[in-house]
């Protein structure tokens, strides 16, 4: 991919800023020629991207296009993978996420994550949500209870579990578990929420609840969601980035990208010609 195209994409990204009247375009995470390697394999290639604050940004693309890899880089979950290293800059709050002065645990507190499969701890509902706040030094039971209730309410789970806070979270249904994981992520009050195909393991009903929730989170959190499901991207996101083979093909306001894609490949992908 040539440099021109990337420039063009960045310009495209600027368009919704001017057009959207609701929120000011203010980049929260900025990728500057950001690449991720697995050994010698370049999974994400010189990405240039500005992710707007307090908006929902969807990252779409066929399997293996590097969208999950990129998402996991934002809270450095790819540290767990041996032989994984990066090039370029990924800037959050003025600092390079992979810079030497970054405290990874502090970063992850501010950049929460919800995973593909619901992964509650095998502990009680309460303990699951209180886990994060506890780690960050909140000990008082009353304060914890407050946080747990608020987080569960935000995750629209409070009414369903308020009577069984002490029961094992593994006893909840899949959809409930995923909302619990969302509550757990919210409980530490992050600024960014990363969602890695959060509904791929859920049935349509649970999926739609999660999607509703994502809509409610807009305005308070910067949500970045990776999804295979283009309808979902169209439904929940304000902005969409289309990645293909590690490269950013197009980025723009969701409505625009889905109705009048600028790139041929985007059009092919969203109309289901490949992917």
């Amino acid at each position, binding site marked *: 991919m040539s440099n021109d195209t990337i420039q063009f994409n960045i310009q495209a990204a600027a368009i919704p800023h001017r057009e959207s009247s609701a929120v000011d375009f203010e980049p929260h995470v900025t990728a500057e020629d950001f690449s991720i390697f697995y050994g010698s394999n370049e999974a994400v290639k010189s990405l240039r991207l500005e992710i707007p604050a307090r908006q929902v940004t969807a990252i779409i693309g066929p399997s293996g296009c590097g969208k999950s890899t990129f998402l996991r880089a934002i809270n450095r979950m790819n540290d*767990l993978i041996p032989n994984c290293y990066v090039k370029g800059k990924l800037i959050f709050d003025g600092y390079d996420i992979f810079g030497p002065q970054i405290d990874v645990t*502090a970063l992850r507190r501010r950049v929460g994550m919800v*995973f593909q*499969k619901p992964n509650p*701890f095998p502990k009680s509902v309460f303990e699951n949500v209180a886990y994060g706040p506890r*780690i960050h030094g909140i000990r008082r039971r009353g304060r914890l209870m407050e946080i747990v209730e608020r987080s569960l309410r935000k995750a629209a789970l409070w009414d369903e579990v308020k009577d069984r806070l002490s029961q094992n979270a*593994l006893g909840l249904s899949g959809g409930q578990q995923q909302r619990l*994981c969302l509550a757990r992520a919210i409980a530490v009050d992050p600024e960014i929420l990363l969602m890695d195909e959060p509904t791929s393991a859920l049935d349509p009903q649970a999926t739609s609840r999660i999607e509703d929730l994502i809509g409610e989170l807009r305005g308070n959190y910067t949500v970045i969601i990776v999804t295979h499901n283009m309808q979902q991207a169209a439904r929940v996101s304000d902005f969409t980035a289309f990645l293909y083979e590690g490269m950013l093909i197009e980025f723009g306001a969701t409505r625009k990208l889905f109705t009048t894609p600028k790139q041929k490949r985007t059009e092919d992908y969203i109309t289901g010609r490949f992917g």
Partner: protein
Amino acid sequence: MNLGTRKVVDRAFSGLGVTSIVLLAAALVVILAPMVLRGTGAFVFRGTVEFRRLEFEKFGRGNPDRLKAEQAAAIRARKTVYDMLKVFPREIEQREDAFRAEKRELRKKRRAARDADVAEQPERKAALDRREKEFDGRRERLDRQKADFEEVHKLVGELLGPPPGEELHAVWDKQYGQTRWDGVEKKVVLLTKIDQWVQPDDPQQPNYLVRTPRAKLYEGTALAGLFDYVEDHAEEMFLPKWTFYWRFLTDTSDSAHYFGGIWPEILGTIYLTLGSMVFAVPMGVIAAVYLVEYAKEGPTIRVLRTFTNTLAGVPSIVFGLFGAVFFIRTLHLSEGKSVLVGSLTLALLVLPMIIRAAEEAIRAVPRTYKEAALSVGAGKWRTVVTVILPAALPGILTGIVISMGRAAGETAPIIFTAAVSVGQPLNLGQVFNHPTPALPWNIYNLCTEHRAVDEIRHVQYGMVLTLVAIVLLLNLAAIVMRARISRKMRS
């Protein structure tokens, strides 16, 4: 392969599987059943009045009034025996006096015969010879009786205990008669029968054992009635009663396990097992966490892992020798054998098992747990402590419990480092510098080096049963734990 053959092969395979399982179960029963049966003999047996007396006098248990009544009845029944024993030495003396007189007379006659007429001599001499021969026969019989009487005296003492009123010996087994009915029966046979090895005329043939009633030796004497009396009145003299002696587990022993229970051994085993866990569990778990979560794969780790696996294959006697040389000789952790050193040695023995179990358990924790913890800002150490270890705990516990069974049953490592054959139960302060008896070692010791191996069979089997029960219970606990955890994981 067509469907028919496949079916046959299938069936043959399941048949083989079932057969092997059945064989295994049968083998287990064949091994365990006699052990259980005989081991039960230490707990359930017919206790005699001596047993109840011992329990009362040494452990302060039982009903004194009833005991007194029983004892009185028993003594009444035994009086005949004691009387006979008392009378017999006097009888011997009298007979010896009589023999001496007869001998004098015979000598006189011999002299008279020598002085007498030559013509009469041969007949008189022959008559005298006959008489002398007969005399010698009687005399020799008395000597045999005299010698055997000592044996009888000893056997009666072992059977009934010292007669009332006699000064008591310092050790318990000289103070009491047989406490168990099976012991009584054995002693009665020893008392009433004489076993003799006879060499056949043909030296090619093996020697054979002849058992004759002892009463025959004493025919015509005051002691002749004793043997039948003992045989017929044994029950009256001992008043056997079925006893459930569960305190076998909690009583201390005396007279090298002649009496009492096996509490010192059990306690020693508990100390050694828990002690080894105190060292092995933290070391093992930390090592496993390091190997799985921290170590970077490389030659160093490979070598380390090979070492742990090799350690698991080292013969246990080598661990024992190492423990003795390293902990006692080199480090001087204690002056000699001690629970501490034994525990350390056993810890080394089970360390590889624990490391492996913990490693596997930690590896089996879903990666998603770790990711979840990290994603809310937990550090690595925090993730290990709050998420990974709790999730791995069931597996780690299973490993710990199984290695506890191993540590409890090991003999070789404690021979040089911790075990003594006789000892009192230790308190916690003594474990650092005192050796202890322990089940595995004492089973060996009681079966081989005890001065009366045959008379304490019930203790040997009781110990074996207890040890097997401990190990089986630990393994059962591990199985139950594993089942419960896997059920939990599935839900």
